[in-house]
């Protein structure tokens, strides 16, 4: 009996000892905190886009000796916190980092709702919040409310508008007919895109020959694809989520849904999509897309080498670009003075792997919205604010 009690106290003492260790920190580093989901509903998305981006960035800065600040070169120490996909936890973590730990910098969190939940705290303590993973149609109201908040993703409607424009151009060039089959997942983004899309298809002169939603988590897509095929469409559009993007394409292959344009929203831009479908993925359209360049190709190579996973063709390069922006702002200011950094972001333009970037108006002036797999690269074929895009190719069988 006494032995067991003793054991408990030994364990408690060991835990206490470990807690003490956490307090030690070197002076010559810049402490940068990253809060995001390691567990919970948002974790799988964050594992592709959120965490690897910061890892690569910090690795590269430290490899070249650190951030060049006025007080000399400082290495970056990245400290990661799990918010368990609960906004209450995100709020607590950010508040603790800002008020208690007084860290040098706090990175934006993952997800629209989570970023908006902590926006008041970032604003209160003056940390700039360049949200890489937040999509909203309320950019004007939100940036006015929070002077430290920046948006770098397009609005929901811009994704629907662009996809439909791509099809409209093909139709106007006489490459496809005007019959389109549209399906959507009955959840968040899928519903929004479907609702935004319906009137736009009509305006663009399309006839919607099939329009159906399916619940999130559907396993069998045969009825959806069979019915879509029976409607004999020229183009197929799915406002879809990761699991159904895969399920629908699998079934389209089996049923031989031979449309000239095949679009599926979220997850076509994932490297796993190409990995799974290989040649069948060729000329499939989807949300996202990146303009090809030597700098981008090099980025994908480095990303794989350092983090061990492939970057995607939507969020990942955007994440990295905005870390480049922050790095230039840190070094431009010469210290971690966050108010000065916010001011710097609102005054300057930045050079990144996706080209010159301007967020002076608290939002990104240009971004890509539609991509297409061509020869193993998910090329941007449409967007907002760019002058040139890769020409769209027609889908020729599976």
């Amino acid at each position, binding site marked *: 009996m006494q032995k067991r009690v003793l054991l408990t106290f030994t364990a408690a003492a060991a835990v206490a000892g470990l807690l003490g260790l956490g307090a030690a920190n070197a002076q010559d580093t810049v402490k940068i905190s990253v809060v995001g989901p390691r567990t919970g509903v948002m974790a799988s998305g964050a594992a592709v886009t959120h965490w690897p981006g910061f890892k690569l960035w910090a690795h590269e800065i430290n490899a070249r000796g650190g951030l060049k600040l006025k007080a000399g070169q400082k290495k970056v120490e990245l400290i990661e916190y799990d918010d368990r996909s609960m906004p209450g936890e995100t709020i607590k973590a950010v508040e603790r980092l800002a008020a208690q730990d007084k860290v040098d910098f706090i990175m934006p969190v993952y997800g629209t709702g989570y970023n908006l939940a902590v926006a008041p705290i970032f604003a209160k303590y003056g940390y700039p919040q360049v949200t890489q993973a937040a999509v909203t149609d309320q950019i004007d109201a939100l940036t006015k409310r929070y002077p430290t908040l920046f948006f770098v993703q397009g609005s929901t409607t811009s994704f629907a508008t662009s996809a439909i424009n791509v099809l409209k151009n093909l139709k106007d060039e006489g490459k496809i007919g005007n019959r389109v089959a549209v399906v959507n997942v009955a959840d968040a983004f899928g*519903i929004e895109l479907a609702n935004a899309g319906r009137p736009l298809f009509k305006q663009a002169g399309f006839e919607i020959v099939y329009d159906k939603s399916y619940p999130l988590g559907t396993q069998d897509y045969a009825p959806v694809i069979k019915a879509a095929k029976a409607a004999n469409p020229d183009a197929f559009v799915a406002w879809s989520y990761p699991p159904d993007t895969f399920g629908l394409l699998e079934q389209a292959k089996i049923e031989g849904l031979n449309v000239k344009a095949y679009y599926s929203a979220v997850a076509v831009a994932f490297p796993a999509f190409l990995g799974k479908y290989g040649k069948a993925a060729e000329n499939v359209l989807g949300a996202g897309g990146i303009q090809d360049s030597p700098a981008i190709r090099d980025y994908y190579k480095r990303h794989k080498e350092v983090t061990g996973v492939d970057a995607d063709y939507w969020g990942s390069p955007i994440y990295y670009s905005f870390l480049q922006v922050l790095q230039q702002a840190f070094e431009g200011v010469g210290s971690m003075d966050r108010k000065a950094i916010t001011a710097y972001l609102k005054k300057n333009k930045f050079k990144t792997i996706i080209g010159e970037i301007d967020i002076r108006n608290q939002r990104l002036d240009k971004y890509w919205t539609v991509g297409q797999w061509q020869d193993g690269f998910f090329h941007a074929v449409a967007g907002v604010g760019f002058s040139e895009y890769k020409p769209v190719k027609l889908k020729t069988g599976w």
Partner: protein
Amino acid sequence: MTGGEKRNLIISVLVFLVAALLPLVNNGYWLSIGVSVAMYTVLATSWTLFSGPTNYIALSTAAFFGIGMYIVAAFLDWAPYPVLVLIAGIVGALFAAVIGLATLRIAGVYFVIFTLGLAELVRQIVAWMQHVMGTSSGLYVLISMTDPILYWLLLGLSAIVFLVGWWIGRSRLGFALRIIGNDEVVAEHSGISTARAKVVLFIISSAFASLTGALVAPRWSYVEPTIAFSPFLSFQVVIMALLGGVHRLWGPLLGVIPFTLLWELISANFPAQTTLLLGVAFLLIVYFIPHGVIGLIEDMIRHRHGMLGSVVSTLQRWKSGNA
């Protein structure tokens, strides 16, 4: 009112007054912890009002919390916020009445499973309604609610929960519930309308969860189904209440405070192993203090042999129970 009750009342009022001073002392980190503690105090204590005496483990907190959030988020353009908070409580109560009448005749594990599915069911209904009405899935609650105000509101709400709980404990209803918890068949044979008693308590408990959701909505700014109806919330509330102890009204509070602080300590010092260490901590808690913090304290008072002795006697009990 007996002398002991008077003393308890005075102590409670003093505790609340001291707690209300927090925003004046610290308006940053500790206040955000305070908000968290106050929120979980309301949720765990109101959960205990129903689940404590009846032994029905309800995992429906997230469903009602989410309903409260959505009432505020969806109708903010049409009605002032305070009115919406009240409506959220009423809608939560009505919904709980319907659910309660339909399900409280089932018992044991069936009830647990049903309540777990409830949050998902409501989430799907909300998504379907948004689909039909063609609204966007994310809703914005952009009214300013500072942390001190939210903290005081939640503290006030928890005071109401305690008052209601105190009143129930003294009433015929509370007596009936304790009998139901001991043996439902006996309760029925004694002429107690068990279904009615359970439904009434379920309604009260759920309405508080909806009110909490409505109060917290502006703090979260943005509401979408996966956020509002997170099943983790339900589990956390149950774990906190059980850690504290469910046989006394103030038991859950003794779970909420150490749990929140322990969680904070672990996630601040071990950011990469939070979930793992929390699991270990939870195992240790279940192993060494199976009757909750309150059981430990009562044991200590009863035997007057200090903290170490309590752990020892708990172990002895545990051992003999398994022998």
